Every structure is written in C-alpha cells, then in structure tokens.
C-alpha cells in the first residue's frame, strides 16, 4: 500500500517517455500547476477548516514576483527616488515568489484570523480584489492590463551541465511534477506532526483546542504562511510556463477553481486535492471544441453544488469508505 504513491509518481514521470505528445504534456503540466495550488489551499481549507477565498492572490503574487524578478523593473518609489532591479536568473525569481507569497500570507493571516466564518471569507476575497486592482493600475510596475510578457522559461542548474533553460515540454513537465511531489510531502510532513494535530484540533473544536493550551491563531498564521508559499511557487511555475502574466490571475474564478478541486477531491485528505486537481485540471481540455467555454464553468459550478450537497466529504474519502466496506 505504501508503495502505491511512489508507483503513481513513477508512472507520471514516465509519461513524457511513453507519450511524447507535446499537447498531452502541455495539458498535464498546466493541470499539475493547479494541483499544486489545490494542495496548498487544502492546508488551509481542509486541515484548518478556514474557507480562504483569496487564495488565488498568493498564486498571482508568486506569478508577478517571479516574472518581475526575472524581467527586472525600474519604478519610482516616491521622493524622487527610483528602485531599479536588473533581470535576475529565474531560480531567484522562483525563490522571490515563495518569499513574497509567504510575507503576504503572514500579513493576511495576522489580519484575517482575528475573525472567523463569513467575516474571514469576506476579508480574504477583498484581499485578492485589492491586489487585482493594484496589478491593473500600477502600470509602471506591472504594465497593467497590457500584461508582463516575454517571461523567460525556467532554468535549472544541473551538475555537470551548468544552468540549463527548460525549454522542452518534457523538462517543464518534470519540473512541475517535482515541485508537486515536494509540495505534497511538505503538507504531509506538516499535517502528520504536532502542528498538524493542532490545526486539526482547531478545525474540530476551536474552544476546546484553546482550553488545552493550543495557541490557535499562531498555528493558523503558520498554516497560512506555508500555504501561501506553496501557492506562490505554483504561481511562479505558471508565469514562466505561460510566458505572460496579467491581472486576471487575481480573478476570483482561479480561487474558485482551486476550491472546487479541493472540495470535490476531499478536503482535509492528502490525496483529495491531487484527485480533484487532476479531474478539474483536465476537464477544460476534454471539453475543448465540444462545448462553449462558458459551459465548462457552468459544469464546474454545478459540480460544486452537487458535491457539497450529496458527497460533502469528497471523492477520496468516499472511495476509501467504499473500499473499507467491501474489505
């Protein structure tokens, strides 16, 4: 049983060799990036039980931070001073994406976790909206609606080869897979630890968790920072893979897509976001040419409603209990 996950990863890693079809790889790569986003959201939504609807903001922050670091920028910062950054290597952009997202995750966590429920949800939505408007209007930095373009592809330092830009589809695919596995392991280590127990405790019964001495807000902020960092990494991959970033990455629809992935797959389970992420990451391409793009979103919306109403725990727990019953 414990070998099954590694067999799954090995199978995924073999795809570019077995199916060297660039279209298939492109679809899988993009789905993989969203799976990483869903894995990060699951830490907050699934394990701490906080419905964060601003999660796409961390994805977007990562995308912009990474793109700007690798493209360089030159902006006025008031008092006649200018901040100038020359184009940096892509790996530095990747690190910056994680750092910036973590910093904003910390900030949002400190602010938003003073409240719960509907209030928390609304703050997180507003957070993403404010960032979207900044991205739209701070043209000097972000180019606004004209978008950041010509973002260089990811490069990787490999022993013996030096810095290699990952230009082929297969290379990018493997990179996304590697980051995905790392993100999965990171979340697994975290939730199966003392901190993870504290998070689960606060989801289950916050008042009781506090009564046994668990500083819930502290751990919520920790979860928010880790979650934001992973989302930032996914955003960075997205930016360098697409080569273009515009303010639309902050749109509510991206967050909602990740929420749907987590909810349908099974929130609070390690494999839920992977399963949900793959399903909803691949649906757009299965529907392409067969249905109008609007109908895809209608399907997403209806799927969310049906899952919450009829299979609220999601696919993974549902399948698990089915297997247990048959055993």
């Amino acid at each position: 049983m414990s070998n099954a996950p590694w067999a799954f990863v090995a199978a995924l890693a073999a795809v570019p060799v077995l199916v060297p079809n660039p279209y298939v790889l492109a679809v899988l790569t993009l789905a993989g990036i969203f799976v990483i986003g869903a894995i990060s959201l699951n830490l907050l939504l699934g394990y701490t039980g906080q419905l964060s609807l601003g999660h796409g903001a961390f994805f977007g922050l990562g995308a912009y931070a990474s793109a700007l670091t690798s493209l360089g920028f030159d902006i006025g910062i008031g008092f006649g001073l200018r901040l100038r950054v020359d184009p940096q290597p892509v790996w530095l952009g990747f690190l910056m994406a994680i750092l910036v997202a973590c910093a904003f995750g910390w900030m949002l966590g400190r602010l938003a976790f003073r409240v719960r429920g509907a209030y928390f949800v609304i703050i997180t939505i507003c957070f993403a909206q404010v960032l979207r408007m900044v991205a739209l209007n701070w043209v000097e930095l972000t180019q606004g609606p004209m978008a950041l373009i010509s973002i260089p592809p990811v490069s990787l330092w490999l022993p013996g080869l030096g810095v290699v830009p990952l230009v082929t589809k297969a290379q990018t695919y493997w990179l996304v897979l590697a980051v995905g596995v790392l993100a999965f392991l990171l979340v697994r280590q975290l939730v199966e630890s003392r901190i993870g127990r504290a998070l689960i405790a606060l989801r289950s019964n916050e008042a009781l968790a506090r009564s046994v001495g668990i500083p819930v807000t502290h751990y919520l902020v920790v979860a928010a920072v880790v979650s934001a960092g992973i989302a930032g990494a996914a955003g960075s991959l997205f930016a360098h893979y697409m080569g273009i970033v515009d303010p639309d990455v902050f749109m509510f629809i991206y967050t909602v897509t990740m929420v749907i992935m987590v909810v349908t797959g099974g929130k609070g389970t390690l494999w839920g976001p992977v399963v949900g992420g793959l399903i909803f990451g691949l649906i757009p391409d299965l529907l392409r040419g067969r249905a109008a793009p609007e109908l895809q979103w209608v399907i997403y919306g209806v799927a969310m409603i049906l899952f919450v109403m009829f299979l609220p725990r999601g696919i993974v727990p549902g399948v698990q209990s089915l297997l247990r019953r048959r055993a």
Partner: protein
Amino acid sequence: MDQALQHLVNGTVLGGTYALLGIGLTLVFGVMRVVNFTHGEFYAFGAYITYGLIVLGGVNYFLALPLATLAGVALGALLEVALLRPMRKADIDSVMLVMIGAMLAMQNLEMFAWGGVAKLTPNPFDGSPLVFGPVSVLPLRLFVLVVSVLMLLGFWLALERSRAGMAMRATFQDPETAALMGVRVGWVNTATFALGSGLAAASGALLGPVFMTSPTMGDLVGLKAFAIVILGGLGSLPGATLGGFALGFVEEFAGGYLSTEYRDTFGFLLIIAVLVLRPQGLVPARERIG
C-alpha cells in the same frame, strides 16, 4: 466647493442604488445566515431581463422595470427552494460553497445566453443634464435615485406593517423562537430570499441603462454589496441603508480627490479595515461557550 457639491450629488445618486443592493443582501444574511454570493448575479439578471424586454420584446421601459424585478423574485424563490432549503441544517461554509457554485453557473449561463459583449439598455430620458446652480445631474440618474428611494421606503413599510414583514423580522431576531411562535420559517426563508433577489434585480434593472450590462458586471457589484453590508454591520437593515450611501460617498470623493484608477479599491480597503479594527463590534457575541 462646487466640485464637492457635485461629488455629493453624484454620491447620493450612486448611494441610493447601493442601498437597494445592500438591503437585499443583508436581509438574506440576517434572516437566513446565508452569505449570498449570487446577489451580484441577480443584479446582472435584472439588467439583462430589462435589456431583453426592451430591445427584443419591444416592451416599454417603465413596464420592463417591474417585470425584471418580478423575474428576479421568481428566480430567487426557485433558487431558495432548490438549493437552500435542503441545506438548512448545513454549516455556513458549506452553504457558501453551494452559493459560489450557483454564482459560477448563473454568471456563465448569462455569458452563454447574451455573449461577452457589453450591452447598453436604451431609455426614454433626455441625454442632456439638468443644471441646478453649481451642480448638474442627468435626468436618468435622477429617476434612478427617486425610484431607489421610493423602493427603500416601500420596503420599510412592508417590513413594518405587513404580516409577512413581521414574520420576517421575528425570524431575523431569533429563528428558534419565531418557529415556536408559529412562524413558518421555511416560507419566511423563501420569501426573504425572493425579496432580496428581487431588490438586486431591481437595482440591475435601474442601473442597466446607466452603466453597460455585461455578464461579469455581477462580480464587482456582488463584492460591493458585501462592502455596503459590512460597513453597516452584517445583518443590520438600517446599517445597509447607511452603508450604501457611505460607499457611494467614499467612492465618489476618494475617486474624485485621491485617485480615479483606484476608485473601486477604496471600498475593499474599507471592508478590511472595518473587519480588522472593529471585529468585536460586528461579530455577534450571542453564542454561549460550553
């Protein structure tokens, strides 16, 4: 000074429709404890029905307004019975997820039905502004303000005087006691959601000819409705009325004096500030611990 007066007038005109929008949302939250993500979509729905009636059906503008409102009421009732009634016992987060799903479906069905291009609803008013000394206002906007205020007043009267309004207020205050006193909470919920949706559709119908009607218009408007409701205190009816005008003024003045590009941002910053700085004032402290 004249400029400030003009902003004041614009803010009032904007605030009237915002108040109408906020009242519906806060009513639904107050009575049903439902964060209604579809509110903005009902606004868009109202705007499209008006457009469709006038342009495709050749219906008179003044008849199209109440028809669009009624369509909103009907669709709201349908949605409540289909989605919210089965979720009565569910936690608030699950209900939010269902409403987000509904929002997504509604918005994209609108996109599918009407296409992505924004539409401008024709109206019978004169396009040249009325000038009152230092300030000027378009006749259409004046009409929108007057209708909004009349609808707000009508809503207040209905809530205060009618039997249904009384049942609604009782449920608003304490659903359990209301149920014990013979209020049929299920129907009150349906009526509340229908009414809230109708108000949103009415705002859309009124503003469709003022702004453009596009499938994604509900997004920003839905968020603004949240801003309005939070400014006034989630679940407070007078608060939503005040909040509507407050947001109208904030946007108008901040947009006029600080930055036009960031006009829509101020509302969101205001929400975050209110929720962060005064959560104790807004979070109901009714729950008993233990």
